[in-house]
């Protein structure tokens, strides 16, 4: 079973601060990561490979500022990585065209795995777009996955208190939620072993047979501030603390 896993190297969102002067989020100097959901996608790929053999290729579009993040996925058990450098300001159209193009170039892929969305912008577009470009079915929001010889079965929570079991023939694209598994932590030996695994850097004109143009332009990203009172009631007796809390809620008219 040959598997491609699409991942993104993103800023650690919890570290982002807003620049008070420009009201823009400060993204420089913030640590970067491949989010847990995408590690879960890699983990799921490894489990399938352990059962059926094959090869796992990790794909990412964009400059990877922290190569350790990609090496970690190789240490987990992926076989190879492809880093595709995009033209300037890529949007979802460009990113998914590049991923689909790279998957075509690699050839003979049975399963494409993605996270349900990447954690920075949380659009969830890349998975469905790549599936449409490759003209294959998709199973989104999978919280359970069982690969069989001829088909794959997925469990998905579709909201509205409905859980759906679906099956698909290969090739298929699956987006996973982080509940699907607990991604393994590579051992030191695996980390050292991964040093020799190939990380290929591809330019889009090397494998794309057509030009791709963005369809969206980001005009502005402005910070949203949240003002809170941050009052902690810390009296000697808990009774007094809760009383103060209740009084404050009453004062705000919240107990009427």
């Amino acid at each position: 079973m040959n598997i491609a896993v699409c991942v993104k190297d993103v800023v650690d969102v919890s570290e982002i601060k807003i620049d008070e002067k420009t009201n823009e989020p400060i993204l420089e100097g913030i640590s970067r990561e491949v989010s847990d959901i995408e590690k879960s996608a890699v983990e799921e790929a490894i489990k399938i490979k352990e059962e059926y053999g094959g090869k796992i290729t990790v794909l990412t579009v964009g400059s990877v500022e922290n190569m350790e993040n990609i090496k970690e996925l190789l240490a987990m058990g992926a076989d190879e990585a492809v880093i595709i450098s995009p033209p300037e300001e890529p949007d979802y159209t460009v990113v998914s065209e590049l991923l689909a193009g790279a998957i075509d170039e690699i050839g003979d892929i049975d399963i494409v795995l993605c996270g349900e969305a990447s954690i920075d912008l949380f659009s969830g577009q890349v998975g469905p777009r790549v599936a449409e470009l490759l003209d294959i079915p998709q199973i989104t929001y999978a919280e359970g996955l069982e690969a069989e010889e001829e088909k794959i079965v997925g469990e998905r929570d579709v909201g509205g208190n409905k859980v759906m079991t679906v099956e698909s023939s290969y090739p298929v694209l699956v987006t996973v939620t982080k509940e699907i598994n607990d991604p393994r932590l590579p051992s030191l030996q695996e980390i050292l072993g991964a040093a020799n695994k190939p990380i290929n850097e591809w330019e889009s004109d090397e494998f794309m047979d057509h030009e791709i143009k963005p369809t969206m332009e980001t005009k502005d990203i402005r910070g949203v501030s949240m003002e809170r009172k941050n009052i902690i009631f810390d009296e000697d007796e808990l009774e007094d603390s809760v009383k103060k809390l209740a009084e404050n809620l009453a004062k705000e008219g919240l107990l009427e």
Partner: protein
Amino acid sequence: MVLIYSDDIDITKELIAKGKELADETGGKVISTIIGEVDEEAANELIYHGSDEVIVVDAETGEFKADKYAQVLNQLVEKTDSEIILIGSNKNGKELAPRLAVKLETGCVTDCTDLYFEDDALTAERIAYSGKAIAVQTFTSKPYVATIPPKNFDPLPKDESRQGEITREKVEVTETGLRIIDIQEKEIKGVNVEDAEIIVSCGRGFDNKEDIELAEELAGSLRGATIGCSRPVAADLKWLPEDHWIGLSGHKVKPNLYVAIGISGQIQHIAGMRDSETVVAINENEDAPIFESADYGIVGDLYEVLPKLIDAINEEKG
């Protein structure tokens, strides 16, 4: 034309209201679609809420599948010559819209919180970085595809005197390799956290499912507040159904009062409740990030704090 689709009729009505506003600027009509079960009443309902036309697509299309429904909508966009396509941002809508956008070779914005014309181009706003920022994006391609979350726009008032054309369409679709084997529907009374004025929200600080009763008791003292929860409580532990789940990947809420109990306050949770008027946090760890996002906090074991807090609130109410 503005073409509208959601498998949830309440969201469809909200999209119609926004669609009308946009159609007023571009000229043209608002056309809503119902795919699947032919339901005369639902079609009328959409007309009463402002849709100029309703297209009902034959039930043969079957149960929702993103790849198939994208084929349906693609054909309807062409037939109606629609320039704007609004899709409800639930899970189905979010896996459908990007596929449709690829067919239409155009851009798409998911989870728009606002949508307007600026310099003749449709511009969309959406939350970025777990609510720390708003991204403003402009389409440089047409048609425009956007998904809009529930409760973002108010539906127009119902007007039963409104008239509109209801047409049936038969659309050819190719079957794909995907098959639905089973749908388990949990029979539970759904909650609507989006509409709640007070929310008591439970995190992994609770030891087991039964203890959620403590939160329910507090909710009882707070005008029958609605129970919410963090992702792990719904998704991992399954103590509460999905419709209680608040956060980036769950529901976005804006109550007057949000009480977070045993919730650490990770940014993905905050993304769903940051618009709350007043936030109270109860957590045994004084360094829990939830306190940074709270107006009032009590550091302590929820099992000790809750009973006492319930008493204090009841006493305060007299």
